[in-house]
């Protein structure tokens, strides 16, 4: 009897260890053979990316600035970095996307966030100095590096959600295709390595939903944007809002960079507004969770931020662009706090205090191919969310940005200046901009997955100009839409 009893216990112990191994063997990131780093391959791919983009500029677009030589590289190094005048969306959104390619090359070759960040910096630096005849740009270097790392890590993790090496056939093809669209360099690397079609029955999963849960929502609705704050002078257009909360902020065991982030992108469909209305990212780089009192849970950490808000004139005869604001390179301290949950109510509060290394904001005066100032400063963000179990939730977001434009010129015709590069080397109109967004949102549960969402946005901008008259502007908008939400 005793023998039988011991046998049963041993069997149970063996079974549990087998199950544990099986659970581990599901995930790619537990496979030691797949954790190998390929730094030289990543560096080579960065060179190939730069060469590819340069070749497109040089031979397809026949751009003058792509006619590089050793002389142009030497000149660029001698001249040093300046501020450039590309349009808002190029500088604040497309450059980060370019940086995302450098980052993904490193990340998909086994390097971690910080290692890949340095590759993004080097990739951007080499592009600025070597791949264009125009002077290297300090703002491009910053947004490409910081924004690129942010976009790169998000796209890398998003592509991991769809990849599954146990699948084959059409399902596998579709997964690889979507993964490649989300993270192109990773997709190409998978093709080169053969991982794109290799079927595995061990180590085939790329994302562990139990460790890193996912909450995604997509909202489609109407955006009612007023012209200069006048209620009945408006533009109506469809909007699509993609919102994702990745990971659990209150888990100490998932503490790598971007194990927790919130990402949001809003697109306009039709109407007078640009296609990409806003992109927002808040990602944890490092942090620690606390329980200050029983039932209270808090995360205090170091976060990376990326924000992009773009608008154009609301009506054809409008005189004012409502706003343009970006923080491409921003880092800061943050707190996420969950009050003790009751059966009916869940309350979150988040506060962030950031240093903005580089940002951009709309200007009322400066015109040299761009209508925004570059600058640095700080931002403060507050989010309070109250979820009422049966009814829905109420959320209040308050974002305050304060950007200082340090380098600007007074009454100088910049283009006709004796210094041929002076016009390229200014942040804009000297002064500072304070931009405040107040955003209350109400969500009403219609059924467990469909939510009626109503939000209003109030925008206030106060710009002080050192050499021009100060400007204060405000406007607002409403958004009403149906939200489809799912958690995994």
């Amino acid at each position: 009897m005793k023998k039988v009893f011991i046998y049963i216990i041993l069997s149970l112990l063996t079974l549990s260890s087998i199950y544990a191994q099986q659970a581990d063997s599901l995930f790619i990131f537990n496979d030691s053979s797949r954790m190998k780093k390929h730094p030289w391959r990543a560096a080579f791919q960065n060179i190939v990316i730069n060469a590819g983009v340069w070749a497109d500029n040089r031979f397809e677009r026949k751009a003058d600035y792509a006619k590089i030589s050793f002389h142009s590289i030497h000149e660029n190094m001698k001249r040093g970095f300046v501020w450039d005048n590309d349009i808002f969306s190029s500088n604040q959104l497309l450059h980060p996307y370019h940086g995302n390619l450098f980052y993904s090359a490193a990340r998909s070759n086994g390097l971690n966030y910080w290692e890949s960040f340095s590759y993004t910096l080097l990739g951007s630096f080499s592009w600025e100095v070597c791949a264009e005849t125009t002077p290297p740009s300090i703002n491009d270097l910053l947004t490409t590096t910081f924004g690129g790392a942010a976009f790169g890590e998000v796209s890398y993790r998003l592509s991991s959600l769809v990849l599954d090496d146990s699948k084959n056939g059409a399902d596998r093809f579709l997964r690889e295709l979507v993964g490649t669209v989300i993270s192109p360099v990773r997709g190409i690397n998978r093709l080169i390595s053969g991982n794109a079609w290799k079927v595995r029955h061990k180590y085939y999963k790329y994302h562990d939903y139990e460790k890193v849960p996912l909450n995604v929502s997509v909202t489609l609705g109407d955006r009612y944007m007023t012209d200069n704050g006048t209620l009945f002078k408006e533009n109506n257009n469809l909007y699509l809002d993609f919102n994702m909360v990745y990971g659990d902020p209150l888990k100490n065991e998932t503490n790598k960079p971007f194990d927790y982030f919130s990402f949001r992108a809003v697109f306009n469909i039709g109407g007078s507004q640009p296609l990409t209305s806003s992109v927002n990212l808040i990602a944890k780089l490092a942090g620690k969770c606390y329980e200050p009192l029983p039932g209270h849970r808090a995360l205090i950490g170091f976060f990376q931020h990326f924000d992009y808000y773009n608008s154009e004139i609301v009506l054809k005869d409008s005189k004012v662009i409502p706003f343009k604001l970006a923080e491409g390179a921003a880092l800061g301290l943050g707190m996420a706090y969950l009050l003790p949950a009751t059966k009916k109510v869940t309350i979150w509060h988040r506060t962030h205090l950031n240093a903005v290394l580089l940002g951009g904001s709309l200007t009322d005066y400066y015109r040299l191919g761009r209508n925004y100032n570059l600058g640095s400063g700080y931002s403060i963000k507050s989010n309070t969310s109250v979820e009422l179990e049966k009814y829905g939730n109420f959320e209040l977001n308050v974002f305050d940005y304060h950007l200082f434009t340090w380098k600007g010129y007074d009454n100088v015709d910049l283009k006709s200046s004796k210094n041929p590069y002076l016009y390229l080397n200014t942040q804009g109109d000297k002064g500072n901009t304070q931009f405040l967004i107040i955003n209350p949102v109400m969500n009403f549960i219609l059924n467990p997955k469909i939510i009626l969402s109503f939000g209003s946005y109030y925008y206030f901008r106060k710009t002080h100009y050192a050499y021009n008259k100060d400007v204060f502007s405000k406007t607002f908008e409403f958004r009403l839409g149906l939200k489809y939400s799912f958690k995994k």
Partner: protein
Amino acid sequence: MIKQLIILILLIFSLELLNAQNKVDRPINFSLWNPVSTAPYDSLYITNVTLGFTSKTSTLNGVGVNLCGHFNEKGVNGLSLNGVGEFVKGNMNGLEISGLFNVVSGHMHGLQVAIVQNTNILHAKGVMLSGITNFTIGNARGVQLAGVTNMAGSHFSGLQTTLGINIASSSSNLFQLAGLVNICAAPINGVQVGMGNYASGIKGLQLGLLNLCGGEVRGLQMGIINYSEDTSAVKVGLVNINPKTQLQMLAYGGNMIQNNLAVRFKSRYTYTIFGIGTNYLELDNKSSGALFYRIGLGIPIKRAFFISTDAGFFHIENFHDEDHTDLPNHLYSLQLRFNMEYHPIRKFGLFASGGYACTRYYGSGGTFENQPIVEFGFVLF
């Protein structure tokens, strides 16, 4: 004798040591960054004045002025001014003013002022004034005044005032006054005044556009829409809802307003209706509409019939009157109706209404027209 002498010497030494532990060794501290200061941090020191860029003290009884911040280990009694922030690991008694934030791990008695956030982890008593957020984690008593959010993580007694949102997560004796929303996740004894109010139970008053109560109401809900899970709650509002309230949709046409869509909140004998309609036929204009509210009484007769009467207020808007400049842009109408409703099945019914409408101009109060009403439609749900 020698023994007695040794004991005496030892006693004197012990007394000296005790005194050394309590004495103010470095009353004034000039600090750039601890330990680059005249009195580097020592857990035994009591400091009376600390001045500098950043400083770290064990106990501060007096005044601290720091361009950047101040870290205190055991407690602050007095006044502390900081350009960026202050972190007090012990208790804080007095006045604490910081450019961005204040954090007190122990007990806070006094006044806190910060632009971004005041955070108190244990018991707090006093006034918290913040541009963005006041946050008490432990029990608290006093006043929270914030630009955006006041949060009480445990029991709170006192006043919360903000332009944004007030939150109390535990049972509280509280007056909440908010520009947007008041939330009490547990039963509240007191008053909530805001655009939206929620409490899981209320002994007092909710005053706002939308009032929600997840439990018992001992007091009054006053607003446009009042909801409580307590069917006996006293509510004063345009729409009063409880779990027994039936939500129905009405679609109908009539001789006065052509097409109408409405929501009816129906209790056993009373109901309210909110709806929209287009077009108001007398305006002879395809772009006119009406927004209306009706309140009435009804009696079910057997299972399938329901007769009712109601009074209503209609706001009528003439949207694009470019060709008919003599027509008014806005009108209002007071209407009385008698309705008969027949439900062949439970979730579908047909109804006919008859009544009379007095339509008048805003401002001058003159009559635009008086006319009888005839309407037919159906009820869903």
